[in-house]
């Protein structure tokens, strides 16, 4: 039985260890500041991919954080019990959708539309990729926010009502600020997940140029997609860069996940003591 848990931890250690060892040869300043090398040459870096991932995650967060927090407020403050449990159920179902199908859904939407503003539709773009990532982030942000909102002690709300403060003022000025650190950590966890997703980007944001691009109406390079395409290339130099990119991704994801979880535990404890 101990062996089972040890197997799981051993796998984690082996994966992290291999990434670390194989990433070292390719980690240099060029890697972070330059674009990919010309075809057939060695060297170069993944700067466009780093910029692209930042853009995609920013777009995704801008869409999913408001909707996630607002829907969590509805479930925790306004909804009757049976509606609240239904919303939670369907959010969990959305969480389980395959991420590649979510990318294909955005692709199917994009084929049909063409918005003259923002130049969305008919082609890949960072907007499309960000939207796909936001669908993946939404259930995570919503569920974590619901959890922290439920932890805000009821006597805070009751004290506020007793002073004559209306419900909306109570929610916005008393409940939400108490839960803000939990919301931030939930968002961080969701961002860590979205930063590592490749499948939704295949159909929405993969035919990117090789240079750093800040234009969201065109497809942008991204770290996970770069790892994916380099991993299947015949060039050993690109393999080394794939390991280095994987190292960056794993470091970011693990550090933010660990930190976010520790912060979440701390805010849980603090809310429980109020």
């Amino acid at each position: 039985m101990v062996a089972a848990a040890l197997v799981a931890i051993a796998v984690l250690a082996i994966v992290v260890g291999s990434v670390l060892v194989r990433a070292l040869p390719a980690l240099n300043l060029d890697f972070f500041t330059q674009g990919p090398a010309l075809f057939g040459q060695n060297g170069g870096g993944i700067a466009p991919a780093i910029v692209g991932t930042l853009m995609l995650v920013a777009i995704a967060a801008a869409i999913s954080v408001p909707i996630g927090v607002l829907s969590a407020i509805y479930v925790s403050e306004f909804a009757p019990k049976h509606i609240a449990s239904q919303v939670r159920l369907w959010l969990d179902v959305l969480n389980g959708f395959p991420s590649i199908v979510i990318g294909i859904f955005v692709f199917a939407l994009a084929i049909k539309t063409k918005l003259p503003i923002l130049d969305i539709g008919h082609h890949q773009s960072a907007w499309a990729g960000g939207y796909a990532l936001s669908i993946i982030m939404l259930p995570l942000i919503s569920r974590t926010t619901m959890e922290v909102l439920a932890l805000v002690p009821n006597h805070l709300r009751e004290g506020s009502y007793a002073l004559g403060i209306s419900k909306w003022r109570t929610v916005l000025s008393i409940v939400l600020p108490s839960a803000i650190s939990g919301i931030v950590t939930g968002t961080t966890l969701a961002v860590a997940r979205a930063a590592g997703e490749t499948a939704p980007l295949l159909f929405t944001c993969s035919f990117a140029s090789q240079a750093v691009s800040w234009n969201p109406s065109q497809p942008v390079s991204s770290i996970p997609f770069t790892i994916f395409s380099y991993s299947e290339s015949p060039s050993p130099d690109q393999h080394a860069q794939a390991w280095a990119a994987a190292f960056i991704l794993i470091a970011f994801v693990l550090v933010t996940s660990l930190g976010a979880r520790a912060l979440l535990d701390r805010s849980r404890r603090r809310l429980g003591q109020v």
Partner: protein
Amino acid sequence: MEALAPPVSGLRRTRHRLDRLGDRTLLALTALAALVALITIALIIWQVAQAAWPAIRHSGIAFVWHSTWNPVTDVYGAREYVLGTLITSFGALLIAAPLSITIGLFLSELAPAAIRGPIGSLIDMLAAVPSVVIGLWGIYVMSPFIVQNIEPWLHSWFGFIPIFGPAYPAGVFPAMLVLAIMATPITSSICRELFVSVPRELEEAAIGLGATRWEMIKGVVVPQVKGGVVAAIILGLGRALGEAIAVTQVIGNGIPLKLSIFQPGVTLASQLANQYSSSISPLFTASLLYLALILLLITFAANLAAQRIVHRFERQRTN
């Protein structure tokens, strides 16, 4: 109390109206956000079905059991991919389910209290590793190791069974292992919560009647949470069914499927991931979306069934 409240002054009346307006606005805004989240599910299913419609109209339901996928002759069929998905996921479950249940039991019953937290966090971190990194590790570290050490051993001992054929660089077996790695954290964390939720009184009553620890686990804990454990396994299955990237990196993209699990194979998700850059004909794209629709419906059904059971257990626990 007074029978009639004193008349409300003008300023207080405005304040009351503003408060009611604010309440209603916040309610409407937040309810709208919750609705958006729910509508997204319906929208996804509807849009994928709509984009797949040309292929559905052309091939009908027989698409599911036709085995030819030939872009050159514009003939498409999903059988190999559906079979591949079912085989890899089932194989992954065979590995992941026992592993996850024992991990859940270990973390809830047998581990010393001090290490439960850290080990649980470590296993959750395994879930946080992006699938493309697991796939990269799978291609260059795990697969060579398996192909050079495990597969020949299995072939030499069990080669008389056709599924254990000769070793091969890329295959269905590494994909099963990768999927097992990805499904285990989910299943084990739900199992752990289920085992912890069994009331202490029941466990202590069993021990008080003279049961050993194992007899208590077998006779009290397991029957209580059997349904939930099945649901946890189905949730892990849902993860395995939909995984595209790590699987496509190690599975070798071989069609038609062979009997040996060491030979290359395909799954619905891996085919979708492989063909994202091809656009041969409108029927090709629509057939690809038909594959996506099949995958979506399978995972949707599995997830919905499993989540209902898990939520029922959660409600029982909090009531």
